[in-house]
């Protein structure tokens, strides 16, 4: 991958708009597009379609990149490609339509869950939550599924910083042996996977420990497992 900081061709392109140069920059950076497309495999969209979406986004990134702004091209292109892939799923897949139509239920589900947990002294079932908020069970099931989906909002930077600051995180980092496969995960993903599957903490306990919601833990776990599975399949 070419970085604009080392590649004067982006400055040249900005002034000449030379199409051959533009095409060469696209070719030189297509690995970035394919890498992002690979993250969205196994979602019901073919690999060819994902590559196409990512490649089109890369071309837009090359066309619109302004080297004068001081941003790395790889950073700019990554945002553009990731945004296009997310937009595709948000607008065109059933997965995300579920997310949109049921997202407004999530705060009610969370509140009902907390209330019922206090009342029942245990975690409620989806049926009990549906009864509590007066909606059909299917709506609760779909809303929870949407909330744990890969396409919902990621953790905020502040939350990731909060997590990274915890002493537990340092302890995990200090573990002598970690499975190589986990190395591909981000720090927060790896942390959640470790706590859930190696330390056997519940999602609620992990959420308490990291200062995030249970649904965010669920989302992180799902995203992490998707990435691990993709990595294994590619291997």
């Amino acid at each position: 991958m070419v970085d604009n900081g080392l590649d004067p061709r982006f400055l040249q392109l900005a002034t000449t708009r030379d199409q051959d140069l533009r095409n060469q920059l696209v070719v030189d950076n297509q690995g970035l597009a394919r890498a992002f497309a690979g993250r969205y495999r196994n979602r019901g969209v073919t690999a060819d379609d994902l590559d196409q979406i990512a490649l089109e986004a890369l071309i837009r990134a090359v066309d619109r990149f302004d080297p004068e702004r001081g941003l790395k091209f790889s950073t700019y292109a990554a945002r553009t490609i990731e945004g296009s892939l997310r937009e595709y799923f948000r607008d065109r897949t059933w997965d995300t339509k579920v997310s949109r139509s049921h997202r407004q239920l999530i705060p009610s589900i969370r509140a009902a869950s907390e209330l019922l947990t206090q009342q029942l002294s245990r975690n409620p079932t989806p049926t009990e939550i549906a009864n509590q908020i007066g909606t059909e069970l299917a709506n609760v099931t779909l809303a929870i599924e949407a909330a744990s989906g890969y396409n919902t909002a990621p953790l905020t930077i502040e939350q990731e910083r909060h997590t990274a600051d915890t002493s537990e995180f340092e302890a995990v980092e200090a573990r002598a042996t970690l499975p190589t496969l986990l190395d591909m995960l981000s720090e927060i993903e790896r942390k959640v996977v470790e706590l859930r599957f190696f330390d056997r903490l519940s999602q609620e306990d992990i959420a308490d420990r990291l200062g995030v919601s249970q649904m965010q833990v669920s989302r992180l776990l799902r995203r992490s497992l998707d990435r691990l599975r993709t990595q294994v399949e590619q291997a």
Partner: protein
Amino acid sequence: MTTSRFHLTLPAQTANLQLVRLMVATLASDLLSVAEIEDIKVAIEELTAVTIQPSEGGANLHLDFLVATGSLTVHGRRELPENVQLVAHDFLSTILEAVCDSHELSTEPGVGTFQFVKHARGR
């Protein structure tokens, strides 16, 4: 003891993973807590993905769900091409041990199967 059985047959394609997740979540909605359902969604997605993974084209995945008082059992089966084995990644057992009470993945000549059981807690 009340027991209900459900059967689902669907193309063995990764595109159907979410349908499987929703199916198991719906069947367990009166039995397990939200957190426990998240667990079984992880279990069925991991096991289904491993079962589907070898040469997706053409085969069907057969899922049987046994919903009993206090527990859910899921059994999966698909036909496999000759000499093809289901291959689990190193962490599958670690993941499954954390999210369900028992599990099994096996390959016999021409067929791959899995099963897992999840018991309700604190009811």
